[in-house]
């Protein structure tokens, strides 16, 4: 039997990954604070007056929550984690470490540049920054640099992979590296929309070079990026679920081929479906909305493959550990490993996220839930559960690995993952129900004049769920901080010190070579984007009308 190939990251590689995580965790710690503040406000308990003059409004807090948690925590964690999966998967150092350093520090400069106007209450435009709500120009510059920095890090991975390919012709790209590369290539294509929005419209407008913007066209640009952004967050979690979790559960990946097919389909289908966020927009024809609805349905398919392959890998592991009967393998999984419990619970929450997602995508059904609390509820099951809880789980082995320290408390960590699960079930269920009843999203409902009595119980449940999530989030932060600066070197017996690289049941080399060829998939991806977006982009850009002067809120 093959032994897991061992490869140790160098000290400088470890510290490079670590500093990504440090920024990610600090962003999470600050951004998370404002989540529960909103949830408490729903029950009429408003803590914002206590925060003055540091935080001057609910929306300044909500902007911080969205930007720091959904954009900064994720991007820094992902670029750090994928640096590791590139190096460890390929068993070679980065081709141009300086390039990745430049990418990282570009992101840091961008973060600072965007954070200053937010903290000065000059960019309280939420993380979707829909014009003509206007922000200080440095907010747009900052976001641009964060994206450009992440591009540069992605180029670094691609150059490294090309070098590896020269050294290893005919070898299948290791799955963890492969998934990371797909993520970054998809991200390059996807971010073109928001790049054009910011560079051609928002920055010239914020600088006063043009008098106004075209808000409808801006929405189309934004959602070109906005939905694949979700897959940019999700695919690194899938990398862990496919290429690591089976090993952590004591088994192997059930199907290497299908894992790769799923990743290819995500490359192909992540981008050309953004109009499903614009189903009720006035400026997009219903026919194009319908086409994007169908394309959105098709991207459900690779996630369903993922569900089967990952669960089957877990079932195989659970049976090897003595599980019997239909479901007896589930309790046999190593639930006492916080990294495993985090990812299993994240997966369960993601079932509900998937159900909400297919509902959102269902064309006219979107009329029922568009811009309601349902959407925020859905979003917390996807990015704040499938993604964030998985990232927490990854952190529970990754931080000890990088720092050479023992996790401060495994027991706390397991409890933390369950609290997140329970808190999120309560919170997200209440939000979904509120949305069906008509409650708007991102609105301080505690002060809204139109709240029917029947909402109050659900509003209270969002507060309770939010409180549990807050406790869980800071248990995570505390555990990681204690581990990070711990004096206990090296992990103890039974603690994970190696990177959990899963083998597959049928060795990757038996996977057809076609599934390692980029060219046809890239051509297909670009072609599909052109078909799905080309005519509407030509139409909307051709009719551009920069007549909205805008307001800084």
């Amino acid at each position, binding site marked *: 039997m093959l032994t897991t190939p061992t490869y140790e990251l160098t000290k400088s590689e470890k510290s490079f990954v670590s500093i990504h995580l440090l920024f990610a965790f600090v962003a999470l710690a600050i951004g998370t604070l404002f989540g529960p503040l909103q949830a408490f406000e729903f029950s009429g308990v408003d803590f914002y007056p206590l925060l003055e003059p540091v935080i001057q409004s609910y929306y300044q807090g909500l902007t911080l929550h969205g930007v720091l948690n959904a954009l900064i925590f994720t991007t820094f964690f992902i670029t750090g984690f994928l640096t590791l999966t590139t190096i460890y998967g390929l068993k070679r150092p980065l081709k141009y470490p300086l390039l990745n350093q430049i990418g990282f520090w570009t992101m840091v400069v961008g973060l600072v540049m965007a954070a200053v106007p937010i903290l000065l209450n000059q960019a309280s435009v939420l993380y979707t920054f829909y014009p003509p*709500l206007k922000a200080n120009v440095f907010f747009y510059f900052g976001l641009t640099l964060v994206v450009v920095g992440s591009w540069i890090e992605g180029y670094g991975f691609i150059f490294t992979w090309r070098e590896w390919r020269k050294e290893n012709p005919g070898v299948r790209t290791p799955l963890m590296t492969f998934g990371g590369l797909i993520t970054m290539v998809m991200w390059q294509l996807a971010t073109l929309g928001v790049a054009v929005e910011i560079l051609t419209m928002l920055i010239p407008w914020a600088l006063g070079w043009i008098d106004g913007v075209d*808000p409808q066209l801006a929405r189309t640009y934004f959602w070109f990026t906005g939905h694949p952004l979700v897959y940019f967050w999700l695919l690194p979690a899938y990398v862990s679920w496919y290429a690591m979790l089976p090993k952590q559960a004591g088994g192997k990946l059930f199907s290497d081929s299908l894992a790769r097919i799923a990743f290819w389909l995500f490359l192909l289908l992540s981008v050309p479906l953004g109009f499903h966020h614009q189903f009720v927009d006035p400026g997009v024809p219903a026919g194009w909305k319908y086409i994007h609805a169908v394309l959105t349905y098709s991207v*459900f398919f690779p996630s369903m493959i993922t569900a089967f392959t990952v669960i089957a890998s877990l079932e195989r592991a659970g049976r090897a550990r003595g599980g019997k009967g239909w479901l007896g393998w589930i309790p046999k999984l190593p639930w006492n490993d916080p990294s495993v419990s985090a990812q299993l619970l994240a997966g369960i929450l993601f079932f509900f996220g998937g159900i909400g997602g297919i509902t959102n995508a269902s064309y006219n059904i979107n*009329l029922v839930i568009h811009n309601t609390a349902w959407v925020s509820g859905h979003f917390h099951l996807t990015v704040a559960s499938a993604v964030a809880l998985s990232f927490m789980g990854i952190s529970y082995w990754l931080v000890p690995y990088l720092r050479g320290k023992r996790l401060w408390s495994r027991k706390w960590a397991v409890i933390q993952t369950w609290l997140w699960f329970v808190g999120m079930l309560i919170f997200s269920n209440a939000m979904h129900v509120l949305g069906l009843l008509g409650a708007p999203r991102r609105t301080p409902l505690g002060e809204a004049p139109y709240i029917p009595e029947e909402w109050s119980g659900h509003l209270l449940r969002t507060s309770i769920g939010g409180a549990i999530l807050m406790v869980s989030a800071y248990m995570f932060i505390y555990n990681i901080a204690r581990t990070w600066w711990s004096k206990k070197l090296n992990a103890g017996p039974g603690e994970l010190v190696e990177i959990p690289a899963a083998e597959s049941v049928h060795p990757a080399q038996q996977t057809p070579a076609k599934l390692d060829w980029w060219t046809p998939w890239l051509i297909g991806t670009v072609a599909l984007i052109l078909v799905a977006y080309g005519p509407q982009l030509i139409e909307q850009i051709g009719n551009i009308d920069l007549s*909205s002067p805008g307001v800084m809120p």
Partner: protein
Amino acid sequence: MSEETPEVSAETSLHIDPYERNWMRLTVVLLVVFATAVTIAGFALGFQVPSPEERVDPRTVAIGDGPFADPGLREYPDGSYDLYIVSQMFSFSPNEVTVRAGSEVTFYVTSIDVQHGFKLQNTNVNMQIVPGQVSKLTVTFDEPGTYDYICTEYCGSAHAQMYGTLTVEK
């Protein structure tokens, strides 16, 4: 490095388990069923989403002599209505409207400043309101009662206060 020696001629296969193959088939069937249900509702039963109506200049649309300069109800001889609504930070104009039960109402909503949302509670009227565009949907009110229309898109500090009420009389 204990990497397997690559054998370029190694036998390759997709190795798709029969259970998983059936699962993929089931997924496709499920998606086709959902898509069919949505398509029938949309294109046969009349549960449609907005489509482009008209481009306007948000700086001038509410002044001059267009319908948005004098927003409100327009009644037709057949008993149906057109209802023009102007959204701005932080109110709808008009914010109180009364129509007769059984009447068909076509909503035309635009914004003169930033984006807003227009959601008429307990109905399927739910539209993004974008400056420079007119959002339009038509519904028939069978049940007498009051329906709030609320702003569902963040539009500034007093967004939570932005709403109006439509009353359906017998």
